[in-house]
């Protein structure tokens, strides 16, 4: 599928602009579902003053594209994009954007959630938080793995 795009970048992004880019000139898409992730001010009971996002260049882009292709195989989506930032981020900054367009809402809702769930478990990014007590690597959460696992064996619609 051609309408699948991945960008890993240090620069911020304009979500409204990205959403417009998901729509084709044919106007056949009746639905767009998007997700934006932000840097929170607290995690695991501690105040966060910033975040460093590291990634494995090359593998990251490839693994996200693989996830988008899986989504395109499961649901009749028109287009899908992921933008993920790396480098130093501040509290309140945008981290990630996922957008999916389709003729009807069901495919767009499901595919967008699927992409985020898989991205959290498979795309090689690592977050390091800055706190008053020093910097610490964020631990992977078992609940993220469970969320991704619930898609296995389930058919799309």
């Amino acid at each position: 599928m051609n309408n699948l795009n991945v960008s890993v970048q240090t620069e911020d992004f304009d979500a409204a602009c990205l959403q417009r880019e998901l729509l084709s000139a044919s106007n056949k898409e009746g639905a767009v579902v998007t997700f934006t992730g932000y840097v929170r001010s607290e995690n695991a009971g501690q105040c966060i003053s910033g975040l460093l996002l590291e990634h494995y260049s090359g593998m990251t882009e490839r693994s996200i594209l693989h996830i988008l292709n899986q989504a395109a195989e499961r649901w009749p989506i028109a287009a899908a994009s992921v933008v993920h930032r790396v480098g130093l981020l501040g509290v309140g900054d945008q981290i990630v954007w996922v957008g999916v367009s389709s003729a009807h809402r069901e495919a767009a809702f499901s595919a967008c959630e699927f992409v985020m769930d898989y991205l959290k478990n498979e795309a090689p990014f690592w977050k390091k938080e800055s706190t008053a007590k020093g910097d610490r690597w964020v631990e992977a959460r078992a609940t993220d793995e469970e969320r991704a696992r619930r898609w296995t064996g389930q058919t799309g619609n």
Partner: protein
Amino acid sequence: MLKVLFFASVKEELDCSALEIPWDQSIDSLDRLQARLIRDGGPSWRVALERKNMIRAVNHDMVTDNSPLKDGDEVAFFPPVTGG
């Protein structure tokens, strides 16, 4: 030659982000490569590379078991991912 990469907390523990190892038959699998790295690196490398939940990738694909390696492969060691 094998290119070996380390990321995030693994990279910090080893104080090493990348290595290039001349190819030979004695490192023709992921487990054998890991044993070589530990042999050459010593106890601190054993602790870092044998950590629970270590993820290993060969040529940008995560692998769950031992995997054959060939000359020119890129291998990576990293902790569970935390993006998104």
